């Protein structure tokens, strides 16, 4: 396992109390694999990623328990100096908003080159040459000239390519992409996702793709982890999950997407609202919205059960996953 997150807990101290953002998350990624972490806002998917990267704001955030094993080493136990060496070189991140993730007063070429001068100790000249090479690699037309331009001179799609180039620069073993195409238009989104998938295949990187878009997941992921209220509620290979979800939340999400055969009828919306992280419901956090809720759901927190009825390695945090799987 390239990356393994075990029983991670993160909380935030706010004006109104303690927000339990991540409550025991486990997931793993192999080299060359794409894991999609699917969830809505407040599900804890981005906070988990920030904890892995070591860029969580602490305070107000606090990691209260858990391990983040990267190549067998627990990142949470490392000194900041050692983490910094891993970050960027072995573990890189792509953000949703490329414009704010890039420094507006430095040229794109300088920012890309910095990766090589800082981590690899290259001369400025060599670093610049490598930067242009990278921009070529992510198919930015006229890379040589454009390396001297500033981030605001690029379009949204081009900026996201630069972010990808920066993440790829030191050929990391794992990339975490947090909603990399959400801010982009559909046609540009397709270009960027294609590029990311291609580079990943070429370098056999692990990719954690954080998204709320069921369509993007279906397009590129190998495995999916569905998050709700800071927990993984379902984890499965992508084909199995779309074929037959083993958690009512996953099923609800899939059903709420407009589809051809539902034209002219009501969408099957999930009732109610995502819970407040300050007051996570007792038992299964999904129980107030669940169509198949039973008494046990209100009292007992379901563990991530092994879904034994399928050959694939999959899990569901629903007491009634068997019923759910059967539909």
């Amino acid at each position, binding site marked *: 396992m390239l990356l393994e997150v075990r029983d991670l807990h993160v909380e935030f101290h706010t004006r109104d109390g303690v927000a339990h953002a991540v409550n025991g998350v486990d997931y793993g990624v192999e080299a060359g694999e794409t894991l999609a972490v699917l969830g809505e806002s407040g599900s804890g998917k981005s906070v988990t990623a920030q904890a892995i990267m070591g860029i969580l704001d602490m305070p107000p955030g606090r990691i209260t328990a858990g391990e983040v094993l990267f190549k067998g080493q627990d990142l949470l136990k490392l000194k900041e100096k050692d983490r910094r060496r891993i970050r960027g070189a072995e573990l890189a991140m792509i953000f949703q908003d490329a414009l704010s993730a890039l420094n507006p007063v430095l040229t794109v070429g300088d920012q890309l080159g910095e990766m090589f001068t800082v981590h690899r100790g290259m001369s400025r000249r060599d670093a610049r040459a490598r930067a242009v090479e990278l921009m070529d690699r992510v198919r930015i037309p006229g890379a040589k000239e454009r390396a001297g331009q500033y981030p605001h001179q690029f379009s949204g799609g081009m900026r996201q390519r630069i972010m990808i180039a920066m993440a790829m620069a030191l050929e990391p073993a794992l990339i975490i992409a947090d909603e990399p195409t959400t801010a982009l238009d559909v046609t540009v989104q397709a270009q960027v996702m294609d590029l990311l998938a291609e580079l990943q295949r070429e370098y056999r990187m692990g990719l954690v793709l954080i998204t709320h878009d069921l369509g993007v997941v279906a397009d590129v992921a190998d495995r999916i982890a569905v998050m709700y209220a800071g927990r993984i509620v379902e984890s499965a290979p992508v084909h199995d999950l779309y074929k037959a979800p083993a958690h009512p939340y996953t099923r609800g999400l899939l059903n709420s997407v407009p589809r051809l055969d539902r034209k002219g009828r009501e969408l099957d919306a999930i009732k109610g*609202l995502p819970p407040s992280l300050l007051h996570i419901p007792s038992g299964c956090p999904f129980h107030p919205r669940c169509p198949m809720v039973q008494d046990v759901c209100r009292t007992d927190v379901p563990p991530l059960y092994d879904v034994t009825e399928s050959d694939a390695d999959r899990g569901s945090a629903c007491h009634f996953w068997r019923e759910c799987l*059967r539909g």
Partner: protein
Amino acid sequence: MPEQPYEPERAVAGTGMGGQMDLAASEATTVEEAPGGPSGGPSGGPEGTGPREKARSLWSDAWHDLRRNPVFLGSALVILFLVVIAVRPSLIASGNPLQCDLARAQDGSRSGHPFGFDGQGCDVYTRTVHGARTSVTVGVLATLGVALLGSVLGGLAGFFGGVWDAVLSRITDIFFAIPVVLGGLVLLSVVTSNTVWPVIGFMVLLGWPQISRIARGSVITAKQHDYVQAARALGASDARLLLRHIAPNAVAPVIVVATIALGTYISLEATLSYLGVGLKPPTVSWGIDISAASPYIRNAPHALLWPSGALAITVLAFIMLGDAVRDALDPKLR
């Protein structure tokens, strides 16, 4: 509310995409976004509000924060005290600030006269207490004038834009170019009146562009919000847009800056009086006293220190109050 029975549904990619969706159940799903969920439990308010059951506006939220802020409480107490003695100085100082006895000039503190006497033999304690009235009057009136003039002009310029705005912006630029102390020396030296009004007038004249800029900026920001567009699409008049939608959302920065400015106006009054162009005796003012005491700083430092201290504490109190109010009103800092 009764539990919904579990309705077995087809799997997503399953074959039987039949239409036997329970209509009653689907109706319920749309209407049931109300918090508390289907169990109708006591889980309370909408998402994120939790224990806060009562309706609260942003102002009451700000007040909730302020009440717990020691900086606010401290500065508010100091200011409250100042206002009280400005209105009724005789509450704590029964003497007459103008009754002086040259025989006691520069004497130190003694029973009944804790701060001692100044160069003219006046009681420093009485004069310091009575000086608060002048400072608070000048500060409050100048701030009110500046805030009214500045926010009306700036607000209208920001709202209507165009030529109005361009002209006003150039005028404020010109005012910003005038050095305050030099301007005061020139303008006020020709005035012979013995009241506080010329000083206040001067402060309003030079102070309004600062507030006008801030008011203009925050009106422009507020104007762009969708709720203003929404009201406009409903057919709301300009007056309604300004008074109901824009002003309440643009006023916070003006209040903050005006509070901080109040402190600086008090110190400006002292500066001008010290330079001899502000207030003039027999008006009792900290600036006049500081000016009068400075030649004797070696022999009678107490005559300088007490009014200076009062001035410094007052200015600091207003600045800290402004800071505390800003923190409470600016949700982005939370």
